């Protein structure tokens, strides 16, 4: 126990969270669990949006975000067990973008698992992505945890196959926000059946962590912060004592608790999105639990982007957000309240101003 505590402390320091936690006694951000041998960590990088301009030119800012996240992930001590990439490696799904993005990801010194994003998918419906990275949905087990990866960004067959004269236009239509021609994301019947079968053999006491690109909860439809059949996926996860969903796509800190299921969003390496209610003044269902991230300084191109490492202690996720030009944040499952909470800013009185008027 002593050993693992000091390792954990080093890990927090090593991952750059020192500034965030140094004001607190370290014990308050450590979760004490009975069986610490089950604890492990993995890193999560997402939403790189590598964008081709022409020839060998790519948008520099997006390249730099992914390059930096990869380089920093390689410095983690102790080493994470694996890395997840949360989708939207490309901007418009082209071979040039996927190849360039893969070349950057290939510098990771760890086993990497991939999630499909809509920007990877809607040009060729994931064909080239599959050549590079394998199946669109799958599951694996690691140190007593069952991990599931879904392709949550598919939509109605009619929209996908019949509505658009070219694949390029289909890609562009799905890339737009508040696009009346858009269509809601979903997991779909086929994958839901696969998931039900996949989970059949898993004991209800086994921690389950599900990775998707879109939130498996409904927040704001106009930007597809949304999965149309979210409730049906949730119903498959509810029987498990410890279930967690980790999703990309939203480029911002979000977290929630619905029944037994904890939800965590991850940062983008490319750019931050504002919160829907502040940008479009539209009603959104941002979970009340979420303390928004603070406003980005537009000069610092990396501000409000980042990546995270995940501390999986006894099957529950503690999300360490590594944020640039900003204060790192940690959102961890609180066993007392039974929900994920920000370890520094959860109480209304301890928030910093831009978090309340983002």
């Amino acid at each position, binding site marked *: 126990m002593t050993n693992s505590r000091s390792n954990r402390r*080093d890990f927090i*320091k*090593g*991952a*750059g*969270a*020192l*500034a965030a936690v140094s004001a607190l006694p370290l014990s308050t951000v450590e979760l004490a669990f009975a069986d610490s041998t089950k604890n492990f960590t993995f890193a999560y990088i997402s939403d790189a949006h590598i964008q081709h301009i022409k020839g060998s030119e790519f948008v*520099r*800012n997006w390249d*730099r975000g992914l*390059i*930096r996240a*990869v*380089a*920093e992930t*390689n*410095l983690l*001590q102790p080493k994470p067990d694996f890395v997840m990439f949360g989708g939207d490696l490309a901007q418009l799904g082209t071979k040039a973008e996927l190849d360039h993005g893969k070349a950057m990801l290939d510098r990771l010194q760890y086993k990497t698992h991939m999630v499909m994003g809509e920007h990877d998918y809607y040009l060729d419906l994931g064909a080239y992505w599959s050549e590079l990275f394998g199946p669109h949905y799958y599951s694996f087990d690691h140190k007593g945890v069952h991990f599931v990866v879904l392709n949550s960004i598919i939509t109605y067959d009619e929209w996908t196959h019949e509505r658009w004269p070219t694949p390029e236009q289909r890609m562009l239509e799905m890339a737009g926000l508040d696009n009346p021609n858009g269509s809601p994301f979903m997991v779909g019947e086929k994958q839901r059946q696969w998931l039900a079968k996949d989970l059949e053999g898993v004991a209800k006491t086994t921690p389950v962590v599900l990775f998707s690109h879109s939130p498996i909860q409904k927040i704001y439809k106009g930007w597809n912060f949304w999965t149309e059949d979210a409730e049906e996926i949730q119903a498959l996860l509810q029987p498990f004592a410890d279930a967690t969903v980790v999703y990309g796509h939203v480029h911002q800190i979000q977290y929630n608790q619905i029944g037994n299921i904890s939800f965590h969003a991850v940062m983008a390496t490319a750019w931050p999105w504002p919160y829907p209610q502040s940008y479009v003044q539209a009603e959104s269902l941002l979970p009340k639990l979420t303390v928004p991230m603070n406003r980005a300084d537009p*000069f*610092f*191109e*990396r*501000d409000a*982007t980042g990546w995270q490492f995940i501390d999986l202690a006894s099957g529950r996720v503690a999300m360490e957000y*590594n*944020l*640039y*030009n*900003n204060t*790192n944040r940690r959102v961890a499952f609180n066993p007392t309240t039974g929900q994920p909470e920000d370890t520094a800013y959860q109480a209304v009185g301890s928030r910093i101003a831009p978090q309340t008027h983002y």
Partner: protein
Amino acid sequence: MRISVVTGLALAGLIGVVGVVAFAASEPSVPPLGLPPVPIPEDNPQTPEKIALGEKLFKDKRFSSTGEVSCATCHDPEKGLTDSPLKVSEGITKGDRKATGTRNAPTVANAVYFTHQFWDGRSPSLEDQALHPPVNPVEMGLPSHQPILDVVRTDPDYVKAFTKVFGKSGEQVTMAEVTKAIAAFERTQVFANSAFDRYFYGGESAALTDQQKRGLVLFRNQGRCVACHRIEQTQALFTDNRFHNIGVGINRIQDDVPELAGEFMKSKATLAEVDIKVLGDARTSELGRFAITKGFNDLGSFKTPTLRNVAVTAPYMHDGSVATLRDAVVHYNNGGVTNEGDPVNDFLSGGIRPLKLTDDQIEDLVAFMEALTSPEFASQAAPAGAK
């Protein structure tokens, strides 16, 4: 007037030309045009006697192992309070040569406005900062602070001064009193009132040349300089008091970062040990503020220096690797590499990107920076065209 007495005591011997800098124990200071009031800590109020004592300590070479190095050696009032044109500071003589550090001596001028001292911000105050160079092996080389205390507790002039300033003598005099006096002196080293200040804050439209005016526009727009080298409505510190990786130093050790950073993350080094390590090892030095915080955001990052009087403090950057102001602008214009086309480091701060400045625009920016020299240092500036 009390103010003029204080000013004379503090500065006349040092610089010769003394402007508006003035301090008194309980009176608000009057900063020169373009700077805010000097922050004075409650536990170290300014007094004329303390400032004079601090200046004496600042210039005392007995506080080095060889008796040849004082604070003023690397922070020379005749060189913009730096050791220009040295790239990195030179300390005590070891064998047949002087020990050198890894970092370019930053100016003491306006250092009082920094919220962190040293290039990597490892010191929180002027008082704390003054503790370290005397015992660093490549600077003043003392084995401990004891030799300093031996001098100030026995030298009759110091005994008298410490008694008068702090009401303390003998064993009661500690490094706390020594560093408070040095810091009090450094808080008088405040210089602004440059051509830029007279133009921008003083309403003298002719204070800048047309080229310098174009440079100011670039500084605040296409050049993106102002984002870190801040100019505000009523004052300009020309720093944001933050730390950035701009691609200097770290670019040379890119392949070594995993090894060097890994060592640091494992080590439990105290800040005093870090002080010795970063000034003694050129590769480790380039980790920048990361060596202090161990945060990835700080890899290869260093404090934004003020640009006031920058024309008299060449060379530039934390390692003195950039010879001229023009070269500094070119580095930024290249998006964080000194030689165009060199590889950008993985940890480059957001905001550092190619600027697409023309040669004429680069010259305009240099001309603008030459307008940031305070009158006290005007005679130290290289003649126009020498760069």
